[in-house]
C-alpha cells in the first residue's frame, strides 16, 4: 500500500534492484502537504474516485424499482415542481409554456450540479470514517468522488434539457461552444466549495444540517427561476438587493450559461471574468483549508 503523508519523503534505495519505498512520518503543523507528492498520489488513484462515484450511485438506486432511471426521473420531477411554483406565483410565461419551461430547466439543472457537488462533499469525510481510519490516502479523493458522482447525475439532465430545448423550438448556434469553458469554471468553483464544506463538516457537524437550507435559499438568489435580465428589470432601483444578487458567485456562472443556451449568444465578458475569478478563489481557498487540515481528520472522526 502506498502511504502518503505531509512529511512523507518518498525515496528509493539507491541501486536496489526492486525499489523499496521509504516513508518518514514526522509531526505536522497545520500547513500544506508537499503538493507534488500529494497531487501525484491523487492522480494515481483517480480511478478510485471514478469507481467510487459509480458505485455510490449504483448503491443508491439499488433497491428501487426504476433503478438508474431515477437519474432522469428525479430532475424531471424537480423541474415540474419548480415550473408549477413559478407559474402559480407569476402566471403563465409570456412566450409560451414550453419556452418558459426551458428557462427553468436550464438554470435548475445547472444549479443542481453545483448543489450536488457541495451536498455530497459535505458528508464525504464525516461519512467515510471507516475508510479514513483504516487506510492512508489523499483525502481529497473523497470530494473528488463526490464531484464525479454529481457529474454522473448531471449529464442525463443535459440530455433531458436538449430534448426540451428542441421541443420549444429554440435555436442552437456556434455560441454554444462557450458552454465548455463555462462548465469548467462552474466545476472548478463547485469543487472548491466542496473541499471547503467537506473539511468544515469535520469541525462543525451542524454543517450537514444547515447546508440544505442554505442551498435552498441560494437557488432563489441565483438566476435559476428567472434570467439575469429579468432580475435586473425587477430589481431596478433597489440597489441593495441588486448588489446581493450580483455578489452571488452563481450569478455570473449560471447567468452566462443561460445567456448562451437561451439567447444563443456569447456571454458577457464581465460575467465570464467574474465567474472565473470566483472559481479561482473558491478552489484556492477550499483546497488550502482542506489540505492543511486533512491529516487531522483521522483524529476528529
Amino acid at each position, binding site marked *: 500500500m502506498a502511504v502518503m503523508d505531509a512529511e512523507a519523503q518518498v525515496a528509493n534505495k539507491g541501486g536496489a534492484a526492486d525499489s523499496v519505498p521509504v*516513508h*518518514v512520518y514526522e509531526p505536522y503543523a497545520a500547513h500544506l502537504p508537499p503538493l507534488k507528492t500529494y497531487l501525484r498520489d491523487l492522480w494515481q488513484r483517480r*480511478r478510485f474516485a471514478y*469507481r467510487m462515484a459509480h*458505485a455510490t450511485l449504483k448503491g443508491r438506486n*439499488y433497491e428501487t424499482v426504476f433503478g438508474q432511471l431515477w437519474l432522469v426521473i428525479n430532475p424531471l420531477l424537480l423541474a415540474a415542481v419548480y415550473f408549477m411554483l413559478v407559474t402559480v406565483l407569476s402566471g403563465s410565461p409570456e412566450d409560451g409554456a414550453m419556452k418558459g419551461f426551458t428557462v427553468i430547466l436550464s438554470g435548475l439543472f445547472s444549479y443542481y450540479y453545483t448543489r450536488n457537488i457541495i451536498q455530497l462533499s459535505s458528508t464525504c469525510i464525516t461519512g467515510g470514517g471507516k475508510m479514513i481510519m483504516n487506510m492512508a490516502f489523499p483525502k481529497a479523493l473523497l470530494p473528488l468522488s463526490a464531484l464525479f458522482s454529481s457529474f454522473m447525475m448531471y449529464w442525463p439532465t443535459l440530455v433531458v434539457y436538449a430534448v426540451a430545448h428542441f421541443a420549444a423550438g429554440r435555436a442552437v448556434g456556434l455560441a454554444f461552444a462557450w458552454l465548455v469553458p463555462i462548465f469548467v469554471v462552474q466545476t472548478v468553483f463547485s469543487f472548491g466549495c466542496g473541499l471547503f464544506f467537506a473539511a468544515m463538516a469535520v469541525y462543525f*457537524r451542524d454543517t450537514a444540517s444547515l447546508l440544505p437550507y442554505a442551498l435552498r435559499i441560494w437557488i432563489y438568489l441565483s438566476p435559476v427561476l428567472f434570467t439575469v435580465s429579468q432580475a435586473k428589470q425587477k430589481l431596478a432601483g433597489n440597489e441593495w438587493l441588486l448588489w446581493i444578487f450580483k455578489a452571488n458567485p452563481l450569478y455570473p456562472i449560471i447567468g452566462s450559461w443561460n445567456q448562451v443556451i437561451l439567447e444563443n449568444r456569447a456571454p458577457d465578458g464581465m460575467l465570464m471574468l467574474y465567474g472565473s475569478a470566483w472559481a479561482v478563489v473558491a478552489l484556492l481557498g477550499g483546497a488550502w483549508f482542506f489540505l492543511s487540515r486533512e491529516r487531522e481528520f483521522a*483524529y476528529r472522526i
Partner: protein
Amino acid sequence: MPTASDPEVRAPAAEGPPRPDPRDQPLAVRVDNLSITYRTSVEKVPTLKSAIKRAGRRERTIREIEAVRDVSWSINHGTVLGVVGANGAGKSTMLRAIAGILPPTRGRIEVHGRVSTLLALGVGFNSQLTGRENVILGGLAQGKTEAEVQAKYEEIADFAELGEFMDMPMKSYSSGMYQRLAFSVGVHMDPDILLVDEALSAGDARFKRKAAAKMDELCRAARTIILVSHGMASVREMANHCLWLHKGKLMDQGDPEAIIGEYMRFLEVGEEAFAMEDV
C-alpha cells in the same frame, strides 16, 4: 486469533525454506521517541451550537489524551512483531501511525517497504456494494492500477472462499465472511509489511488455520508482520519479537516468551499489587 491450544489451528509443520533470521535482514520499521496525543473535543459530537456557547464562556474545547508516550523500537524485515497490552495501551494507535493514518505528535517513524493494513474490518467502504466491487475499490484506493487489481482478484476471491457471495452486497455477509475477505485482501496486496489488528477473531477454525499458514508463508518470504493481539497464544506461536505497551508507555520488549510471562504476571498481580505493597 488462532490459538495454540486449538489443535486445528496449529501452524502447519515447517515446509519450504525456514524463516530467515531478521538479524541478517535490512531495517523494516524504526520508531523514535514516538508520542501521539489525541486532541479530542469535550463533547462526543462537536456542534456549532456548543462551540458558540463555549466560546462565550471562553472554555477550552479540547481535551488531550496521551495515547502513546515516548516509545522507541526498531525491527528488521523478516520479523513477526507481537504487540501486547491491556485495553487502552495505545497498540492500535501506534499501528495506525505506522500505516500513516495518524500523524505523530512528537518523534519520528521510518517505514521501509509497502504497507498493507488489516485493521478492524479492513475492507468494506460501502455495504450496499458487492464483495467484488469493494475489493476493487480497496485496491484502487491503495494506488494500484485497475489491471493489477483485476489480476489479484481471482486469488483474493479463492482464498476468501466466498463463492457466489462475492457478487452479493456486503450487507448480506456474516461477520466471519467479512473478516475472511478483509484478511484475503490484506495478504494478497503484496505487502512488505503487514499490519494486523485482531483481525481473525471471527473466522471459523478452518479459516484461522489457513490464515495462520498464509502468515507463516509471508514470514518465510522475509516479509514483516506486526501483530496486535490479546490472544497470547498466537503471539507466542507466531512472533519472534514482542513489545509490551501499558497506558501508552513501552514497558519492555524482547523474546515473546519472556515478555508475555512478564505481562501475564503483571495482569495477575495487577497495578494495585504494587500499591498494596506499600500498605
